[in-house]
């Protein structure tokens, strides 16, 4: 296990080293300042403003105008993506000649990619044209990520603004975030991934006559250009059905390390950006610390549990201890080049963030190992979380913690010198509680009725319950990883969509959950930004509760765990923990 912990430690060191430079850079992007890429992209930036008729020197938007622009862009893209998915038969870049899948699946997939969820009932290589992957899904990987980041930029501006009601210009934010942050890293990252074996072509699938005389068909496609933004934008939707477990998406220990960094670099660095913009780095580090503690606990728990092996393996007489030349542990649903440590680290990273990419089978995790992705989703993606979404959701918890802390010491709650009043607390509570509510209602509806049963793979037992609960946890939190057994799409003649059909209940409920649980909290967050903007700042006094010290970090962790995890504890108990506590097989 020593080598495993060494890799985890190395990852943490590299990540922490990146936070300051990247955080400063993102702050410059948010503040419309010059960056080192301005000489390269400045012309394109100004051209885009002219094309979109956006005035970069203008007064900015109040929260309602900002929200309206955001909703308009998302809605238009929803329609365009749905049309792209419905017209596969007439598209270029379609060497396999795929037709479109069922309409209810398209509804689910469209909702999934517009909301940065990337929940996938379909397998990419067996259902989608290269055109739909590139011009449909990968575009949303950029745009939905940029939307999340824009919202946190707006919230920070609202928290900081001492006068006026402006929280920035949505169109300008989107252009700058894509042009200066997402696209440059994607270009460099995609080329690096190709150099390591991730494929990038438009060829027909290759038919191979194998060494021992069989046949193997290898699906091809423009994978690297999509893989990089899938991780960087915490999207997670794989080009292939088995996602980043497939060697053409993730070819070695090195690409695995690189992809994990891509996933966490923006969510982690944003805490530094935050500290810089509010004028106190300690505020940023306090939030980072709270996130980091919850993250690292998950990593260690899942790693130890997976290294132990599963009850089914022990009952079969398999020895799961590490021996010379073998890692031991639960290698079911894991690839050799990643082993136990890297699959465990990946699992924790992609479930604390809203990435949802997988490099191993979640359903094959041990009971306790599998409880970690569940609890991570239960924190409502505030532990680093999605790009932008993680920090803005965490800031709601910060305001909540300030309020509760203020009540405990009997003072008017203040955050960064601004009074937290009834309006803010109402909005924060709605924002914090909306996602859990969406999860429990939808998962409840699916478990309690016959309609949900058709989607289960494991049947009526703790594993089946886990599949169901996880499906709605993942979709409502816009994560997109799957306890893979749960299905909404059946494809009797794969590859291709001939004869394929959807399970409408799962597709429609899932699609609605993703859209509402994405945009309702965004509106609450923007409203909080609007309410905070222009509030008078009073100087900190002796009685002011500090929000940049260990006491506050502890309080914040406590609130996240209380609200997030305890909401779901009874449900998680019935699934993975029931599996973990019993040696019984089902």
């Amino acid at each position: 296990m020593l080598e495993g912990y060494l890799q985890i430690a190395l990852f943490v060191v590299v990540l922490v080293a990146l936070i300051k430079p990247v955080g400063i850079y993102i702050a410059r992007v948010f503040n419309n300042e010059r960056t080192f890429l301005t000489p390269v992209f400045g012309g394109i930036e100004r051209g885009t403003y002219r094309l979109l008729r956006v005035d970069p020197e203008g007064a900015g938007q109040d929260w309602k105008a900002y929200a309206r622009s955001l909703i308009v862009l998302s809605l238009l893209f929803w329609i365009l993506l749905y049309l792209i998915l419905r017209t596969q038969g007439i598209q270029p870049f379609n060497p396999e000649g795929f037709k479109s899948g069922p309409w209810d699946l398209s509804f689910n997939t469209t909702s999934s990619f517009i909301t940065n969820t990337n929940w996938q009932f379909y397998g990419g290589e067996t259902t989608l044209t290269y055109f739909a992957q590139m011009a449909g899904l990968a575009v949303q990987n950029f745009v939905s990520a940029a939307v999340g980041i824009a919202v946190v930029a707006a919230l920070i501006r609202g928290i900081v603004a001492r006068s006026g009601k402006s929280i920035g210009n949505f169109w300008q934010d989107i252009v700058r975030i894509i042009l200066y942050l997402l696209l440059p890293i994607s270009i460099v990252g995609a080329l690096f991934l190709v150099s390591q074996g991730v494929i990038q072509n438009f060829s027909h699938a290759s038919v191979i006559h194998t060494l021992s005389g069989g046949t193997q068909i290898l699906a091809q496609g423009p994978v690297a250009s999509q893989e990089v933004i899938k991780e960087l934008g915490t999207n997670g939707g794989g080009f292939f059905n088995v996602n980043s477990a497939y060697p053409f998406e993730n070819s070695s220990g090195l690409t695995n390390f690189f992809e994990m960094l891509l996933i966490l670099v923006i969510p982690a660095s944003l805490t530094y950006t935050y500290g810089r913009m509010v004028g106190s780095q300690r505020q940023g580090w306090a939030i980072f610390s709270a996130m980091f503690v919850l993250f690292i606990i998950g990593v260690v728990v899942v790693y130890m549990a997976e290294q132990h092996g599963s009850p089914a393996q022990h009952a079969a007489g398999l020895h799961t201890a590490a021996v010379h030349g073998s890692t031991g542990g639960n290698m079911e649903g894991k690839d050799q080049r990643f082993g136990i440590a890297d699959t465990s680290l990946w699992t924790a990273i992609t479930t604390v963030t809203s990435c949802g990419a997988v490099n191993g089978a979640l359903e094959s995790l041990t009971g306790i190992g599998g409880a970690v992705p569940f609890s991570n989703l239960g924190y409502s993606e505030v532990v680093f979380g999605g790009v932008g979404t993680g920090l803005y959701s965490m800031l709601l918890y910060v305001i909540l913690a300030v309020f509760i802390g203020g009540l405990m010491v009997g003072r008017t709650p203040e955050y960064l010198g601004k009074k937290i009043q009834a309006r803010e607390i109402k909005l924060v509570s709605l924002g914090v509680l909306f996602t859990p509510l969406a999860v429990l209602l939808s998962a409840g509806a699916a478990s309690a009725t016959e309609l949900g049963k058709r989607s289960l793979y494991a049947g009526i037992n703790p594993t089946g319950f886990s599949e169901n609960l996880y499906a709605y946890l993942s979709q409502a939190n816009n994560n997109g990883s799957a306890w893979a057994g749960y299905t909404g799409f059946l494809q009797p003649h794969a590859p291709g969509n001939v004869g394929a059909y959807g399970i409408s209940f799962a597709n429609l409920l899932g699609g609605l959950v993703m859209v509402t649980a994405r945009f309702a909290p965004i509106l609450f967050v923007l409203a909080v930004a609007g309410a905070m903007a222009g509030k008078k700042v009073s100087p900190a006094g002796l009685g002011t509760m500090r929000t940049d010290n260990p006491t506050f970090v502890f309080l914040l962790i406590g609130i996240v765990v209380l609200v997030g995890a305890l909401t779901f504890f009874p449900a998680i108990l019935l699934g993975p923990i029931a599996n973990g506590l019993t040696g019984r097989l089902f």
Partner: protein
Amino acid sequence: MTQGLRKDLRTGLIAIVAMTVVLGLLYPLAITGISQVVFPGAANGSKVSLDGKVVGSHLIGQEFKGKQWFHSRPSATEYSGNVTYFGNEGPNSVETREEIREELKSYVRENKPYDHALTREGVPVDAVTQSASGVDPDISEANAAIQAHRVAAVRHLPLAKVEELISANTDSRSLGVLGEPGVNVLELNIALEKEAPLK
């Protein structure tokens, strides 16, 4: 319709077209163009050949059944490279137990005649569990060391020679620290065919 909404709709329509063209077409086409010139081998799937014929990809595992080959890990998809899915064997499932029991039994049955010290307790975990990708190109070094006895005997090669080929076809951890070492089964079997062809 208010003026603000009308303005947003117009900006939005231009934006979705512009973004789709730049991010959805120009960007992936440019990456493909550069990749095909600079990394043609990797961009097209890291294919490997024997006697001038392509027999597979360095990165994608294949199924090997006969005694003369090193065997890959169990796969839920029979090593499919165009329809991928997870086996989803649950940790507390009776089916998982039965499948691992079967795999253990057949692994010991195949290799024990050549490696007399082999017991069920000595079987490495990767040899009897399904991989995630279904096309895991690698096996553990412990797994290869056991199978070496069988392959050496069937191909009439000294064990030391086979062990030499194993270490020549082991991918160590990236940069010495990242990931786990793995023996590339296809490359190893190609090396065997070059060293001691059966035909």
